[in-house]
């Protein structure tokens, strides 16, 4: 058996994808022009699939902070914080994030993926129990492979399903099995854009004495009066023992973090391999993230309002045309398509029309669904989004995904 034979099934699916004439997994952004536009295939395209929720990648104050940091401290740290030490700015960033959440401790990671991977796999070990939502992100699933804890999945966004699984953690005599229980949830799920019923989940966790970890990757900035995420909007910030997030979406850079009030939290700095054995964030990233966090704190309410106005424009506009969308409003809008080839074809047609979104197909999606995944930006204009709805409606009708235009009275009846 050859090394790559095990991937034969995936290779077949991938070949299908490429027969459409464009490869969505190897798209080249020839030049990114702004948070909402990029040149792709020689043409200026509207980008509605970049997770750039506040559009801060081109915020002049964030860009200047990064430039100043490079001039002052160079391009990179060339090593991990354990080996090369922390720069003052790493420590300052951690203090600012902790303060933003009103938590005592914060650890910063080089990517959001590593934050989940490192924290989750280190928090639980032998004889502990890790309970994860069935639709969890790949970083959470990968953490499961790195821990000795028993991992149990519960049904997506279903507190009763979690309750049943926590209840079952009994020994032969009906007593509770020893070992910690850690429950992992996400603020906004990245494929369909739906939120966890966090208040109900927290109640279940309290009942069984389980720790709660919430990944706010897609909800930082977007949810809560101060933009802290679902923990804040659901009113359970104090009940969430660990909050993980990323700098690569709303904050427009790269990196991850975890905050907590646990007095022993800092022990993770010498036990978490994904923190210890990788180079730390470069000064420019730390500086732009600190500035982006300042923007969230000062202009967050305004940007959040713009973002949600855009969410409503796109979501309502697509529903009105008959598209089947994810279950609730959110900065991620997932458009259901009947199958993989239809999704790829639709995606390709949109790119030809100058609109870039993500395409998500099995096995990366829950329940085998095929999706066009759109993510909104606070600085998308109404005109851009109206244009997108028109284009999608046209393609949708051509492909028979949505019905023909309704005949108005006095028409060709």
């Amino acid at each position: 058996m050859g090394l790559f034979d095990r991937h034969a099934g995936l290779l077949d699916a991938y070949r299908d994808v490429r027969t459409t004439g464009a490869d969505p997994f190897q798209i080249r952004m020839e030049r990114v022009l702004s948070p909402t536009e990029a040149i792709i295939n020689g043409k200026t395209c509207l980008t509605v699939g970049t997770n750039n929720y506040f559009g801060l990648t081109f915020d002049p104050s964030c860009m200047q902070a990064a430039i100043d940091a490079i001039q002052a401290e160079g391009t990179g740290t060339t090593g991990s914080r354990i080996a090369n030490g922390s720069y003052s700015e790493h420590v300052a960033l951690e203090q600012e994030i902790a303060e933003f959440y009103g938590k005592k401790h914060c650890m910063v990671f080089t990517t959001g993926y590593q934050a989940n991977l490192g924290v989750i796999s280190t928090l639980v070990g032998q004889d502990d129990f890790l309970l994860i939502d069935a639709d969890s992100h790949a970083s959470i699933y990968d953490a499961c492979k790195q821990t000795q804890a028993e991992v149990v999945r519960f049904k997506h966004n279903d507190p009763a399903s979690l309750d049943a699984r926590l209840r079952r953690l009994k020994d032969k005599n009906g007593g509770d099995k020893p070992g910690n229980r850690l429950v992992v949830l996400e603020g906004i799920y990245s494929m369909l854009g739906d939120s966890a019923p966090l208040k109900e989940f927290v109640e279940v966790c309290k009942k069984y004495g389980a720790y709660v970890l919430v990944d706010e990757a897609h909800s930082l900035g977007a949810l809560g009066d101060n933009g802290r995420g679902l923990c804040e909007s659901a009113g359970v910030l104090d009940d969430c023992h660990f909050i993980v997030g990323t700098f690569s979406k709303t904050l427009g850079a790269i990196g991850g973090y975890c905050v907590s009030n646990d007095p022993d939290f800092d022990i993770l700095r010498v036990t978490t391999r994904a923190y210890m054995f990788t180079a730390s964030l470069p000064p420019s990233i730390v500086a732009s993230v600190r500035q982006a966090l300042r923007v969230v704190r000062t202009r967050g309410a305004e940007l959040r309002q713009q973002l949600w106005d855009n969410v409503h424009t796109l979501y309502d506009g697509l529903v009105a045309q008959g598209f089947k969308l994810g279950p609730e409003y959110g900065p991620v809008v997932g458009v259901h398509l009947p199958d993989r080839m239809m999704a790829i074809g639709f995606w390709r047609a949109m790119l030809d029309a100058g609109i870039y979104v993500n395409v998500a197909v099995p096995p990366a999606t829950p329940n085998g669904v095929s999706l066009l995944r759109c993510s909104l930006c606070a600085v998308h204009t109404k005109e851009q989004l109206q244009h997108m709805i028109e284009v999608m409606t046209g393609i949708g009708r051509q492909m028979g995904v949505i019905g023909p235009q309704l005949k108005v009275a006095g028409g060709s009846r």
Partner: protein
Amino acid sequence: MIVENDGTSVLLRRVPVRGEVMAEICTQLAPFRTSDTQVIRGETAISKDLAIDSLAVMDMVMELEDRFDVSIPMNVVAEIQTVDELADTILKLAARR
């Protein structure tokens, strides 16, 4: 027979017999047969003989968990290859309850 409806699937509280477990597994796996004539047996290798991906296996396991009121850890699921092994695992966990 004591059954209780938890809203998603019928929960069996008492320790099931092997026939019940096998029947339920076959029902759950039926949609993944490679042809209408394929018969699912104890020795059927779930991932190899059926048209089912790893995610769908885990989703099917969740349904079985709720039917028989057991939890099968993910690392245990990964080791299971045949229908017989899956039934054995469920019976073992149910007996331990």
